[in-house]
């Protein structure tokens, strides 16, 4: 810390400039497309009016999906927390067996595109030919199926499987950043395992859990893939499929924009709720990382807990990817696994014969890495500004940072398209417009993670550095940033991993030169090449696991200690 004091008297204090620049970048990234969207929602050929809103909300037919979406998102949010938070605690704080496998498979769930998971679950649980239903019928001799995935519960179930990892990662990061001293103290004082968890660990993890719920809620609200697969056959719409309906040829873009406006309202509402819940309560723990926590012994519950996690991951990964594998290795997927039907041809086709694949893989990786890095750094700055209230209107910044999450990918992309398809900012047709789309879309995720991480670093440490003479920028860089370590890493992960599977923006903005893996998967699906779709889906999972393994080797255990 003395080195900071030495540097202080030289040169300008760049602090305000850095914060302003940070805020400005955020402003441009978010405000530009949103402003265009708002403008589109009130634009008609005759002039500005609310006609689009009447068109969008006038008919009960269009209001139904709003209710459906709210119910859908709320239940998925709750389920994601109920699954993700306990799993994070089990993996991070107890002596659960098989932690490595559980962590890895959870990450696998995180990178699975929701429509792929949904399609695999149709193969597993479709009422007529679902594999699970077939087994059930064979065993019990029943006529009707055990489960019908084409239903709201089915949709909620499948979506939760691919949304809980967000809560898992956020909660895990919070737990890792919290030193175990308080829990140890409680145990020494005689509290049982459950009491410690309930009265000490849980309250400390609340910011992360609330943040996780909000992210899961908003992510579900704007999800398109799974509802398209499951809600439509179940004969109901959610807001995103309804918006997609507005894009049916001829597209009614302005009505779609108007229809998407309430979603922004929802985001604002949730942010307000988050602030009320967490607000001024003290979650900070002085000192950052202390000793490694002693694992809580689960005793007789060890294997039951493992069983619970195993069931979750079986549903998220094992069963669906088995269904995919069945098709990936088949000449004709409708025939299942018979000796004559096995082949490696699909993998060969996808990797070597199908042109777009290779450039798509490179594009996806580059985009994911660059977006994650920039998002994490940018949002660390914004979260810092908001926490320390460095600028007036810090709360507005916080809202802006979270707003894009409430806008469905397809609608956001319209705004982005219009914003960046004219000179001097002609980005359309290049990979850069997709980069901007990802960055804008994932800012909220990075912000929420950084915000939750900030909550655990007490300002006293920074203030101590400043008393010793460091200016705010230096103090932030040398003191707060390292303490945020794990939090930043989780923010990075929370952007990197979903970027690998992002579809709703990419599908609108891509051109032949700027494809990503999920777009290739989706277009193969639209061409009816299900065997190729499965192979590429499995390759995506494999690629991710390889990346995670390599990162773990280089960054050590810290990488996945979330």
């Amino acid at each position, binding site marked *: 810390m003395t080195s900071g004091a030495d540097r202080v008297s030289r040169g300008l204090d760049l602090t305000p400039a850095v914060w302003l620049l940070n805020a400005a970048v955020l402003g441009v990234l978010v405000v530009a497309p949103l402003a265009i969207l708002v403008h589109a929602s009130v634009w008609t050929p005759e002039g500005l009016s609310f006609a689009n809103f009447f068109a969008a909300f006038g008919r009960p037919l269009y209001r139904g999906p709003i209710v459906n979406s709210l119910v859908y998102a709320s239940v998925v949010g709750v389920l994601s927390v109920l699954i993700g938070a306990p799993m994070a605690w089990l993996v991070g704080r107890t002596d659960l067996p098989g932690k490595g496998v559980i962590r890895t498979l959870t990450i696998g769930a995180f990178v699975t595109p929701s429509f792929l998971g949904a399609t695999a679950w149709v193969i597993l649980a479709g009422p007529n030919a679902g594999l699970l239903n077939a087994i059930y019928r064979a065993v019990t001799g029943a006529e009707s199926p055990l489960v019908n995935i084409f239903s709201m519960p089915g949709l909620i179930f499948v979506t939760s499987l691919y949304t809980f990892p967000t809560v898992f990662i956020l909660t895990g990061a919070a737990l890792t950043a919290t030193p175990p001293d308080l829990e140890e103290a409680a145990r020494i004082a005689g509290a049982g395992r459950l009491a410690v968890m309930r009265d000490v660990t849980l309250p400390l993890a609340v910011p992360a859990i609330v943040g996780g719920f909000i992210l899961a809620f908003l992510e579900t609200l704007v999800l398109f893939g799974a509802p398209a697969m499951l809600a*439509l056959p179940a004969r109901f719409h959610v807001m995103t499929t309804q918006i997609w309906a507005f894009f049916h040829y001829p597209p009614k873009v302005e009505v779609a924009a108007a229809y998407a406006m309430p979603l922004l309202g929802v985001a604002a509402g949730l942010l307000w709720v988050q602030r009320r819940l967490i607000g001024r309560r003290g979650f900070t723990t002085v000192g950052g990382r202390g000793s490694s926590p002693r694992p809580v012994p689960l005793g007789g519950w060890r294997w039951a807990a493992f069983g619970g996690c195993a069931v979750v991951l079986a549903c998220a990964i094992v069963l669906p990817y088995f269904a995919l594998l069945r098709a990936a290795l088949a000449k004709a*997927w409708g025939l299942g696994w018979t000796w004559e039907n096995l082949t490696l041809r699909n993998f060969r086709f996808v990797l070597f014969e199908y042109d777009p694949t290779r450039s798509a893989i490179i594009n996806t990786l580059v985009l994911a890495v660059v977006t994650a890095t920039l998002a994490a750094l940018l949002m660390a700055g914004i979260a810092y500004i908001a926490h320390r209230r460095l600028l007036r209107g810090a709360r507005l910044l916080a809202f802006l940072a979270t707003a894009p999450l409430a806008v469905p990918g397809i609608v956001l992309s319209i705004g982005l398209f219009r914003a960046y398809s004219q000179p001097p900012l002609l980005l359309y047709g290049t990979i850069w417009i997709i980069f901007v789309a990802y960055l804008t879309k994932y800012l909220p995720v990075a912000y929420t993670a950084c915000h939750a991480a900030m909550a655990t670093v007490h300002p006293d440490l920074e203030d101590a550095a400043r008393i010793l003479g460091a200016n705010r920028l230096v103090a932030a860089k040398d003191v707060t940033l390292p303490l945020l370590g794990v939090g930043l890493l989780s923010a990075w992960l929370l952007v990197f991993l979903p970027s690998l599977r992002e579809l709703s923006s990419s599908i609108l903005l891509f*051109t032949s030169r700027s494809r990503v893996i999920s777009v290739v998967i989706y277009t193969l699906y639209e061409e009816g090449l299900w065997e190729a779709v499965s192979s590429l889906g499995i390759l995506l999972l494999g690629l991710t696991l390889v990346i995670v393994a390599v990162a773990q080797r280089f960054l050590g255990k810290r990488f996945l200690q979330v």
Partner: protein
Amino acid sequence: MQEASANLWIADVVHTSDISHFLDFKGKGMLAKYAPAGWERFRPEFKDADGFYTVLRGTPYVIAINTQKVAKADAPKRWKDLLDPKWKGKLVHAHPGYSGVVVTGMTGLLGAFGWDYYAALAKNNPLVVQSAEDPPMKVSGGEAWVGAAGEYNFYRAIKKGNPMEIIFPEEGVPFVSSANAIMARAPHPNAARVFTDFLFGKEAQQILVDDGLYVPNEEVTYAKDKRPLREIKVLRAEPEEVLKRNEEIKARFRELFGV
């Protein structure tokens, strides 16, 4: 359309599965007049009289059954057979909102049977899917036992070995034409013309034919198991009709099927 409204002229050549789009484009002056080499010898139903676009590929809209679930004797022979209650819960139907193929197919059937047909079909509770490519997938896997789609989608899946069989209903079938055109303000007009000639030349057309499609160029050789074009009874769905009925079809589908 999005690119055009932004005054972005990136594409040289345009091709979609829905021919009514091209009427729209032509009306808005977005297309360049061009007749690919050999145009005079093409089948007449594949040509636009004004010469702004040419149908690149076509496919009849047909029925297919899953042969593992449906015995030959029970298979439907006519579109009207699909209304039989024995198919309740076993049908699949793609949503017209997402695919021009389905809109064209429905236009053809509406011309022959009217909306009463679809009102009755709705009672059989078909599985409504988003993509026009989905029915073949659902029928392959047995989640649906019967479905309708563009013939070449079924054909491709059957060639791989999937347990399906195509049925040409006795009343006739709509024919889905997918057109190709050069943009009026193409950045590379010469390359566009050369490419278009290639697309309609024997080599490229044969590739399409091997995939199960029907093409305008008569120099190609069709597989033995493909029904020749002249033997197909067509339920006409003119592009103007498809364009005109577009909104009506989507709206009434929503009323009948709920989505």
